């Protein structure tokens, strides 16, 4: 190993990069900080160009996250994850037996980490962070904020794209390749819009407490129903509050609309 160890710092916040560099200068004077990256993409490029021995990786960065950078580097450098307070990530790091620092970084904590890194640098090859941990963190980062039922529909109305909150959607009706969305605009007026997503792909993302399928090609919002009129042969029709559309209820779905 070369006499002077090289380091890379990746963090999207410049003040935090500078501060870490400054502190490392105090506790590890012989460390040569060869690169400071502003995001995951730069971190990977600089790693490939300069091959540092130690990488300090912020977990949350725009574009490519620190977790993905770690995966890319594998066992080619000693890794230290840096994260702001985040109970989930901190717990995962603690259990995953990898080096990590919590922002704001405390001096003693940094010294401990540096001591560990120094002894590792002289004694052993770097070990890649366990894939299970990376996987777990990557899923966590992607899932922010919590995944739940669909909240907005992206629809084209005329020339512009609109975000329609599911709260103002009265019904969805399949129209061959498209789906017609019956909704209320911000003035409460009944409007329709087209979206490209087929109804069958939407159904599984809907909140089942609010939306009920009434027919192979129709989903209706319970709050929009004015009344359900019984028809022949175990079918029915739905009339909506404040709009003229009449929606069909098929035999297969009529059980949703029976009185409880």
């Amino acid at each position: 190993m070369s006499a002077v160890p090289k380091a890379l710092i990746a963090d999207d916040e410049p003040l935090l990069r500078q501060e870490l560099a400054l502190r490392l200068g105090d506790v590890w004077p012989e460390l040569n900080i060869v690169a400071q990256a502003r995001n995951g993409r730069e971190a990977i490029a600089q790693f490939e160009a300069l091959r540092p021995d130690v990488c300090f990786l912020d977990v949350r960065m725009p574009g490519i996250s620190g977790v993905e950078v770690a995966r890319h580097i594998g066992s080619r450098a000693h890794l230290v994850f840096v994260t702001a307070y985040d109970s989930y990530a901190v717990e995962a790091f603690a259990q995953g037996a990898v080096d990590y620092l919590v922002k704001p970084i405390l001096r003693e904590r940094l010294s401990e980490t540096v001591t560990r890194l120094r002894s590792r640098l002289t004694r052993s090859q770097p070990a890649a962070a366990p894939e299970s941990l990376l996987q777990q963190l990557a899923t966590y980062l992607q899932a922010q904020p919590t995944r739940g039922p669909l909240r907005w529909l992206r629809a084209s109305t005329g020339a512009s794209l609109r975000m329609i909150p599911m709260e103002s959607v009265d019904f969805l009706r399949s129209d061959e390749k498209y789906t017609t969305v019956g909704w209320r605009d911000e003035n409460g007026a009944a409007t329709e819009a087209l979206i490209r997503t087929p109804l069958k792909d939407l159904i599984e993302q809907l909140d089942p407490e609010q939306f009920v399928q009434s027919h192979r090609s129709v989903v209706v919002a319970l709050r929009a129903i004015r009344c359900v009129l019984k028809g022949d042969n175990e079918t029915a029709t739905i009339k909506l509050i404040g709009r003229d559309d009449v929606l069909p209820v098929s035999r297969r779905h009529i059980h949703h609309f029976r009185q409880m």
Partner: protein
Amino acid sequence: MYTALANAAPERGWRLLIGWRRLRVTLLTAIVLGLLLLPIWRSDTPTLFLRIGGAALFAMLVFGLFEQWPKRLPAWFARWALQVAGVAIAVPAAFFLFYWLSTEPGHPPFWQVQDRLGGFAILGVTGLLLAPWVALTALVRQKEAIARHQALTFELERSELSRQASDARLRLLQAQVEPHFLFNTLANVRALVESGSPQAPVVLDSLIAYLRAAVPRLQQHTTTFQDEINLVRAYLELMQMRMPDRLRYTIRTEPEVLAVDCPPMTLMTLVENAIRHGIDPSEEGGLVEVDLRVEGHRYVATVRDNGIGIHESGSACGTGLLSLQERLQLAYGKSASLQLCENLPHGVTARVWLPAHRESA
């Protein structure tokens, strides 16, 4: 939800059959009819009222009987028709019965006595003409009452549900003081302090302003746009310290909007959303434009960014926006609204309209 429909029907059984209101209407009708017939009545007055009253009560019972029995009718036969027909037959039948029973033994049947036949004819014909109309009126009014009752029950349930939901969301929001934001910001402040930067006290002031405005905020029901602008400015200053190379912002306001009341966190939610989902995930960052103005009879708050925009998935953003929409609805009803549009080539424009005059929700 559907249980409400089932419960909306009035009571059944005996209570329905001889309900107080029904009894009152029946007897009143009988008395009025009696008074009208009094001038041409040849016999004694009590008999007249007893007969009319008796027939009316009998018709009422028949009306009530067919209302509940038989339980099921063939689809082509409407229950109201059965009830009206029942009443139409019941009234002359009752008079016939009264005359027949009041004939003393040994006397000829009443239809052979000129006077008695005349009395029966008058009572029977007026009863036959009047009774079905009374029954029809009763049916129409009943239908209206049920519809009103249902509408009220629905409305009640809906408002109750929405209140519960928003209370829950509010509590949720209050509990969320973003630790990630706070600690990251503190780390930055410390870096400034450590390097002896003259910027340190300025940034610390922004943090204090942000915390002061953000913490007790949701307990209040309203703030002014001025408060919101102060909060948003403090927040944007902090974020710009953290990502100076990626965040630019402008704030434009028309002075007459600043004193206007708005629900807490209205503007802040839009700005936070723009940073969190537009600027922060973008390598290049971008521009956030805040704009407050009067437009006709409404106030418009616009937050436009040119960040990465909204993901295809659609579920990636919105807890904050949804709860804002809910709070707006609670405070202003339909006269306030929130709209989200995509910008070209990328980014989002979020707009909130508030009525210039607060209407009761």
